[in-house]
């Protein structure tokens, strides 16, 4: 009886969640744009179009327009709380910031959401030294080792003379100065004003463009899907879980043929499947803001305006493993893996499946 306890634990995998949703892209109440917008930090976007050999015309300009982002070195956290920064960037447009080279389960991490909330995920020592009000992390267990501090920069009571602002500034500037490397992106809502490049000193800030790669996959086995059958029908179509696994295998270049001499993977493409001659895969890596992904999704829906051989295409977006939030302000943690990703499968008739997946220390996606 006693000895079975360790064996029982081995049989359980760490918790992970996959949420699947089905809707139509042109439906009035479709929430696809809302879901994309809620997921603020995206590090990789890939789309796969079966029966396609090159980048389609409709997508060429969108790919070229994926915005650039900035890397700031050694930025003191209190600079993000000064009213100059708030008035110039946070209030005019949507500003996304995330600390770079910090691990969510070991170090302090900070993130600025486009809604104006600054989220600090700090360890116990830093929290006690900082002196700001926060709450213990949900995934901390009995001995709390991690605290989350949320500062709402857009709060009307956060004006320059308020006690709140003075306290926050004192804590971040004098009590426990914190310095991080930040990834920043700013989407300007049209108003003229200074840009990030001119606001920060030249030696601190660096502009980076997302990395874009294209590849054409030959003789790919693709599962057969029916848009109204989420669970799949035996002999007729595959379920969403099977598609999700297959897509993971394809994006990671895992071979699907289960050769007898291969010891790395025995994964086979789910049945029923067809063999497509070619499929186009494009991957964009960087610090990508949700607005760019919404544009890309729109253009991918426009791909089906003309008749095409493909029955469906997929758009996969990965979030940062070390970001303190996944969707909206749900806390994100890293246990043995920090995945928080979502995947759209868009069909010819503009039905879509949306799959959202999170790892162990995560809330259920919305």
């Amino acid at each position, binding site marked *: 009886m006693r*000895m079975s306890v*360790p064996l029982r634990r*081995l049989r359980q995998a760490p918790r992970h969640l996959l949420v699947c949703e089905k809707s139509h892209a042109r439906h009035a109440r479709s929430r696809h744009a809302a879901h994309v917008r809620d997921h603020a930090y995206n590090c990789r976007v890939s789309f796969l179009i079966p029966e396609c050999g090159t980048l389609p015309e409709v997508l060429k300009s969108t790919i070229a327009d994926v915005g650039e982002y900035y890397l700031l070195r050694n930025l003191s956290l209190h600079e993000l709380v000064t009213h100059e920064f708030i008035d110039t960037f946070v209030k005019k447009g949507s500003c996304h910031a995330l600390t770079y080279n*910090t*691990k969510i*389960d070991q170090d302090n991490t900070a993130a600025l959401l486009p809604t104006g909330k600054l989220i600090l995920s700090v*360890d116990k020592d830093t929290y006690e030294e900082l002196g700001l009000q926060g709450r213990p992390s949900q995934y901390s*267990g009995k*001995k709390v080792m991690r605290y989350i501090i949320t500062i709402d920069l857009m709060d009307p009571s956060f004006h320059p003379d308020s006690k709140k602002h003075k306290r926050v500034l004192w804590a971040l500037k004098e009590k426990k100065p914190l310095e991080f490397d930040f990834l920043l992106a700013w989407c300007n809502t049209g108003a003229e004003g200074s840009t990030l490049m001119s606001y920060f000193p030249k030696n601190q800030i660096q502009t980076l463009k997302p990395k874009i790669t294209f590849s054409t996959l030959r003789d790919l086995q693709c599962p057969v899907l029916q848009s109204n059958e989420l669970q799949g029908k035996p002999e007729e179509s595959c379920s969403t879980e099977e598609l999700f696994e297959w897509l993971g295998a394809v994006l990671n270049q895992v071979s699907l043929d289960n050769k007898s001499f291969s010891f790395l993977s025995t994964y086979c493409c789910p049945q029923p499947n067809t063999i497509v001659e070619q499929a186009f895969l494009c991957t964009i890596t960087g610090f990508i803001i949700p607005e760019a992904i919404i544009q890309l999704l729109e253009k991918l829906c426009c791909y089906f305006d003309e008749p095409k051989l493909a029955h469906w295409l997929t758009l996969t977006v990965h979030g940062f493993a070390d970001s303190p939030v996944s969707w909206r302000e749900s806390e994100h943690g890293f246990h043995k893996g920090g995945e928080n990703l979502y995947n759209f499968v868009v069909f010819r008739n503009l039905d879509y499946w949306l799959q959202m997946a999170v790892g162990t220390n995560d809330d259920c996606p919305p």
Partner: protein
Amino acid sequence: MAGFADLNLPAGPDKKGLQSLLEAAARLGYSAVALNHVIDFKEKKQEIVKPASPSELFPSLPIVQGTSKRIKVLNRLTLIVSDPSHCNLLRSTSANIRLYDIIAVFPKTEKLFHIACTTLDVDLVCINVTEKLPFYFRRPPVNVAIDRGIYFELLYTPAIKDSTMRRYTISNAISLMQICKGKNIVMSSAAERPLELRGPYDVANLGLLFGMSESEAKAAVSTNCRATLLHGETRKSACGVVYTVKKPRKVEEEETTLPACKKAKTQA
């Protein structure tokens, strides 16, 4: 959660070997390591030497992979005791013992295990993984140790090297888990070569084999190591107060006969 730490890297005389070990540990993601100096009383009388400070040994510490901080190097002393008289060294006031960040003891008999858990002023109690345990763990001393903040250390490198030791590691660890229920465990390597080091998440997975839960296993490589370090620091700071009182004419022994906490109050 705290940063990952490996509290047992044998400190040999070979500086280049140590440097490559440090680089491997930093590349795997450990934010802190402790260089272990072992004193075995079975051999002829050994002196506790002053540990070389890390800044002298390593001119430039490698940066931990995935962050921008440098790896922290600490000093640790392990005493292998097989006789109660060996413990007197811990009670003595050799100046050098205060220079170590962590003090560990490796008891070889049941009586010494009991003494280590209940009375000795140490941070870690090492559990033998290379041979069959000569004694069974009993609940009372283990519970007292957990209350005092002492952690039990399990090594994993012997399991990599030899299959017989692998069996002993797993059986000894599981018998410890049945008594302590996964609390107060620290897992470390005793890696002499960089190839014997494993990443922190892999070591946490090994903890699952021993019967710990997911969070306990991850804590064994991160939070519990941090707690051990803090335990070592409290030991240093209390004794530090004793030292500032030292008057030049008084003999050292007279001062330290008074318990440390009494001294702390008068000096506050």
